């Protein structure tokens, strides 16, 4: 029999060692199977040779991997083997408060969901030292070997049992889904425990492992567990299986001219949890003003693989239920315990499952929309919704090309996607974003940027991402475009300006546009970017003067643009009407009705300084 350590000289000493090592081993087995953060990592499945195993891990011939530091501390705490070791596995779960809405609402009028803790398992390991010692049947030389063998069997069965009980599935679900949506498993180790109340014991079953005689006492283990965990509605909120969002709405990046529905649609599932005990963000967005940024509500399915590079700790599949990042809810930003949309989209390693290589196949292009080239969905992955600021501030999608340029100050802004893996019980291996909950709110100027930069993606790789996530998320830009920069940066604008000038020359407009563009307002530049793209892909002219491109006006935060209009007066006045009357998504709607050629016309006419507008 291989004892992991040098044998004490006396048989009693050996038996004592068995007992003293039994406790930490049992603790390790239980917590390893229950608490995701305490699971041994980095265990490879190469041929196990047993040569590189620590001595302490060899006890009971069950190699578990290195013990987390938390367990080591616990081990040192439990010094007296006569103390029982009671391990409570506690499920933290949200409880909805339907009554007393006034009390439960926070400042923003959103209901607070409280969390509760329920013991779902209790493991008790103890060394019982009966007063009457059992007669020693076998001689001492082989006694410890038999005792050791039996304790090995006991621990084997304990190990198997941990996999069979319901809490194991919960633990697996939580560890694989980063969004615990208010659920978490924590533990408590003590020598004494509260007795379970009557009603609780009715729902709990007990399993007693057969004790092992270890003279002068005996080692015993038992587990009391809840056999039915359906009350906690775990299946609904956790492990939503990855699914393809068939009614994907699309995003400005993929279809700039497309109308995006109002954010009234609720997205099921949960957002990222920041801390245990917090509920998922719901999909209500009634307070959201209409804006075409609402398209960002549904991007996640389309995010491409590059997102994965974002988080090193992200080795698990995301539940797609996370993808409700309703950035319209300002509480998401102000509230520490709700992960805001900025986190969501690119945090989704599961997304590759259904996006990989797809060219946004699920985007519904409405008939009659402008025939623009839809960039591949892979280009959208940069457009993290982290740029969503409080909608109240910027109801309209401004193009702020300047701010999309990565300024040093924006580097320290909201770092982007947070993978929050709630774990109160031990170390949190993944770097978590809940520490950055509200930083970005104050940096509104940076928020303006790039929110709709998706719109401006050129046919190639997008030239800019949301500046909200400058350093982290934008690193994903490197995947496609190492020197991703805003096309409306001065350098880039010149290029686009040149394109303008070339096409404009054909129309005998001033080539000064290339100079005028950078000088113009942010909105103008942004508008130009969209149009540049469309120009590149524009079909031949059509004489359809029914509508004008109102989206350009939508882009302009303040209506007046120092541009001029050429073309027919009637056409222009119609356009002006559109511009004045429409807002946000409505503008998009109008824009959809325009052909790209009409847009070109409008741009040229508006850009030409020669002919003046008539109001």
């Amino acid at each position, binding site marked *: 029999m291989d004892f992991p350590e040098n044998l004490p000289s006396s048989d009693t000493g050996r038996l004592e060692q068995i007992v003293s090592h039994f406790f930490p081993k049992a603790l390790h087995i239980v917590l390893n199977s229950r608490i995701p953060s305490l699971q041994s990592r980095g265990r490879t499945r190469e*041929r196990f040779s047993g040569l590189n195993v620590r001595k302490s891990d060899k006890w009971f011939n069950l190699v578990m991997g290195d013990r987390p530091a938390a367990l080591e501390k616990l081990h040192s705490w439990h010094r007296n083997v006569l103390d029982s070791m009671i391990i409570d596995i506690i499920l933290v779960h949200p409880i909805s408060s339907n009554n007393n809405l006034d009390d439960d609402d926070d400042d923003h009028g959103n209901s607070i969901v409280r969390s509760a803790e329920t013991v779902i398992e209790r493991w008790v390991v103890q060394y019982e030292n009966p007063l009457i010692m059992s007669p020693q049947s076998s001689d001492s030389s082989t006694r410890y070997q038999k005792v050791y063998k039996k304790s090995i069997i006991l621990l084997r069965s304990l190990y198997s049992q941990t*996999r069979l009980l319901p809490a194991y599935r919960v633990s697996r679900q939580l560890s694989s889904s980063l969004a615990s949506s208010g659920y978490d498993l924590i533990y408590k180790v003590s020598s004494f425990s509260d007795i379970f109340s009557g009603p609780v014991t009715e729902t709990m079953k007990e399993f007693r492992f057969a004790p092992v005689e270890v003279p002068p006492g005996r080692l015993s283990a038992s587990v009391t567990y809840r056999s039915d965990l359906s009350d906690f509605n775990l299946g609904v909120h956790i492990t939503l299986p990855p699914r393809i969002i068939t009614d994907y709405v699309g995003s400005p990046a993929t279809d700039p001219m497309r109308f995006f529905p109002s954010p009234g649609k609720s997205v099921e599932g949960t957002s990222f949890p920041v801390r245990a005990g917090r509920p998922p963000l719901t999909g209500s967005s009634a307070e959201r003003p209409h804006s075409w940024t609402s398209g960002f509500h549904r991007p996640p399915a389309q995010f491409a693989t590059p997102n994965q590079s974002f988080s090193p700790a992200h080795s698990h599949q995301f539940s797609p239920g996370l993808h409700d990042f309703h950035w319209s809810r300002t509480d998401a930003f102000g509230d520490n315990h709700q992960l805001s949309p900025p986190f969501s989209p690119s945090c989704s390693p599961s997304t590759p499952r259904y996006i990989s290589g797809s060219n946004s196949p699920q985007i519904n292009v409405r008939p009659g929309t402008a025939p623009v080239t839809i960039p591949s969905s892979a280009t959208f992955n940069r457009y993290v919704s982290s740029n969503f600021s409080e909608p109240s501030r910027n109801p309209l999608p401004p193009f702020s090309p300047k701010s999309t340029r990565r300024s040093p100050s924006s580097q320290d802004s909201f770092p982007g996607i947070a993978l929050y893996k709630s774990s109160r019980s031990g170390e949190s291996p993944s770097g978590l974003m809940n520490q950055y909950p509200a930083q970005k709110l104050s940096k509104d100027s940076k928020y303006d940027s790039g929110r709709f930069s998706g719109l401006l993606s050129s046919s190639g790789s997008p030239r800019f991402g949301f500046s909200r996530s400058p350093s982290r998320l934008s690193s994903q830009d490197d995947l496609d475009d190492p020197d991703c920069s805003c096309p409306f940066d001065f350098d880039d604008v010149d290029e686009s300006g040149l394109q303008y000038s070339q096409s404009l020359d054909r129309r005998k407009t001033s080539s000064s546009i290339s100079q005028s563009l950078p000088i113009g307002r942010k909105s103008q530049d942004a508008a130009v970017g969209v149009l540049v793209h469309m120009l590149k892909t524009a079909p031949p002219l059509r004489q359809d003067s029914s509508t004008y491109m109102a989206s350009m006006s939508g882009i302009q935060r303040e209506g007046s643009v120092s541009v001029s209009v050429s073309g027919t007066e009637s056409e222009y006045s119609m356009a002006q009407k559109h511009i004045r009357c429409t807002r946000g998504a409505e503008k998009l709607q109008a824009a959809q009705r325009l052909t790209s050629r009409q847009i070109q016309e409008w741009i040229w006419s508006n850009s030409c300084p020669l002919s003046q507008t008539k109001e």
Partner: protein
Amino acid sequence: MNCEVCQLKELEVEPFEICEVLRCILHTIVFHRALGLIRPKDIDLELFEITYVQCGEIEVEKKIDEKIEQFINWIEKHPNKKSQICLSFYEVKSKQPSWFTKIERLYWEQWYINLNVLQPTKSLIGKSHHSKLVMDPGEASEERSSRRTLLEQSLQEVLFQIIKFVNEKKDHVPPINDGVIYYPFEITIPSSSDSAFGMDMIKRMLHSGHPSMLN
């Protein structure tokens, strides 16, 4: 040394479920009898929401997979039968070498896995003929899913049964030899003859009572 016998609860399985069910049960048993230094391996079943533990030894895995394959082949030739798979642990006792070497196997534990393999297509056809109704695909899938749920519960019960048994009976387990990871075992499946079941039973009785050379 007496031979402890454990009869596991009978499971109704469809042919495609045999592999997973058998792997789960056999590995679980061996895990509790692999008392040498091992690194356990958690395996999730694909058909059921059950995780079982393997001892991680490749030889064990190979041996089990081979036997399962043989069993499945046998099932294909003998469909719709109740069958039994026996997992036996033995000790090797070599007698004094004489003019022939006799290796004795002393069985100290036997596990009987009882399976009732159903052929779903035939049963469905039988039903439809009997009732003169076209089998509604919805009904069939509902039936299948409820049967699957029942099987999952039964499989869990079998695993609990194993844990209980290994807990309660420890005295008969031989001492662990140095360097030995798991106790030698063999898996017996029904043989090809029609009277295999009965013959197997007799064989086992002989083996457990009288150690003798096995094929």
